[in-house]
């Protein structure tokens, strides 16, 4: 356990070393959310609400979704792909830790850094400039906290899976890019799932993506309450367990593949 905590710490410190990174990060996140804020104001026009979300809830939804993304988002799929291509992964495998576990911890270190240095200051700035619907109910915050940890896990699991495909596809830049685009749309980062046409909503119900962005953002904006909220979190939990299966299988196959490549 100690060594994994150490990995979180190292990655955190590595991120901290690049100072210009976080000033510009906060600034760019704020511009980003600002632009979306006005876009959604324009989309609502004079309307009171769309699909049960008021304009205030909607702008909050976007702000929270982008801030949460700072926490769950990481590039470990790209890193894994790089390490496989450079052959570094062979060395990693003989080290006394789980490679995938280590990657997850590095992602977590990065997430904690972004949460503390982008999300929280960004959220403060954004809420000073724009009107947002921020709940002061501690129970909403704690459910949101649980939910966002689960979104980190689901997103990381999907990243691990995409990264591991490099073992079989050799060059998967296109796949990684496609995955990112699909997640932005299907996770509800760009649009709440409830805005999609019914048939699309039905399809998305069977995919893990809405556990990444839609669920935590809806909890924060109180679009999900009570039973609906508990169900959404249980769904997230279910996906974190289900996704372990393809990861396990792919990893087993990948190790076999390694022996052939390594010669």
């Amino acid at each position: 356990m100690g060594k994994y905590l150490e990995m979180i710490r190292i990655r955190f410190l590595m991120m901290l070393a690049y100072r210009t990174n976080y000033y510009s990060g906060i600034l760019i996140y704020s511009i980003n959310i600002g632009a979306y804020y006005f876009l959604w104001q324009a989309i609502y026009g004079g309307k009171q609400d769309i699909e049960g979300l008021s304009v205030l809830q909607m702008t909050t939804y976007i702000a929270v979704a982008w801030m949460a993304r700072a926490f769950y988002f990481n590039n470990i799929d790209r890193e894994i792909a790089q390490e496989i291509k450079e052959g570094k992964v062979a060395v990693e495998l003989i080290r006394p830790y789980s490679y995938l576990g280590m990657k997850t911890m590095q992602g977590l270190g990065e997430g904690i850094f972004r949460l503390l240095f982008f999300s929280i200051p960004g959220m403060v700035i954004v809420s000073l400039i724009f009107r947002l619907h921020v709940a002061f109910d501690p129970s909403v915050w704690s459910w949101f906290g649980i939910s966002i940890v689960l979104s980190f896990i689901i997103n990381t699991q999907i990243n691990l899976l995409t990264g591991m495909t490099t073992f079989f596809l050799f060059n998967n830049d296109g796949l990684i890019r496609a995955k990112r685009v699909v997640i932005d749309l299907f996770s509800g980062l760009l649009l709440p799932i409830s805005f999609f046409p019914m048939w699309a909503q039905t399809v998305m119900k069977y995919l893990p993506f809405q556990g990444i962005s839609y669920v935590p953002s809806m909890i924060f904006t109180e679009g999900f309450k009570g039973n609906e909220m508990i169900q959404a979190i249980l769904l997230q939990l279910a996906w974190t367990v289900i996704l372990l299966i393809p990861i396990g299988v792919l990893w087993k196959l990948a190790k076999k593949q390694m022996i052939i490549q390594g010669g």
Partner: protein
Amino acid sequence: MFYLKMFFQYVAQYIKVRLQYRTDLLVEFLSDLLFQGVNLVFILIVFGHTKLLSGWSQYEIIFIYGFFLVPFAIFSSFFNIWDFNDRYIVKGEMDRILTRPIHSLFQIILERIELESLLGVVTGIAVMLYSGGKLGIGLHWYDPFLFILFAIGGALVYGGIFIIMAAIGFWSDAKTSIMPMMYNIGNYGRYPVNIYNTVIRFVLTWILPFAFVGVYPASYFLGKEEWYGYAFMTPVIGILFITLSVFLWNKGVKRYRGAGN
């Protein structure tokens, strides 16, 4: 002349390499199409809930998006330098570049060329033709020429901004995580700038002039006369930004001391 010859040699080499790995190429085409599709889906869903966006109709917004895809495709093919810092400064590749008798920026652009992104030109024109047809836009004989001029202008704006971002790497230790976020900001130039407040509109017009890649030039073809002044400034802003970026780049290269020692 020498530069032109180099350019074609690199392109020929590039095509040979890409055709070696055809499935790769296919996957990249598909992921590009997917990316373009997702943005279209966003517009379609939004207009499923509203009729007008600050006075702009669905097909007008789609038309702007179609236009945007063209300069963006040119940019992605020739200015693929978003990981310049990691790839060239941190890993010391810049040393290799500087020993050769061609301008360093030109070499890096050639090395990182990604011609398959030009597919976006085709998609963009298709989207414009489709939405233009729905809007009943007529064409003058000079419109195609203006279109090419505006598209190149827009690509230069994009290129200029990203070269400036890359050149900053010579001065600061910034890692490249600003770059992906810059791609996000680039997207806001696609929406009518009159929906934003004055600060954001100012930023998108004069500081990070992404509005010149989408809404401004496209409004010319949409016949929005109040934006014509901005539309015709597109090539000017493009040349201005690319000149500024090359100037900054040259200054940065003088400062560069190499990695490692």
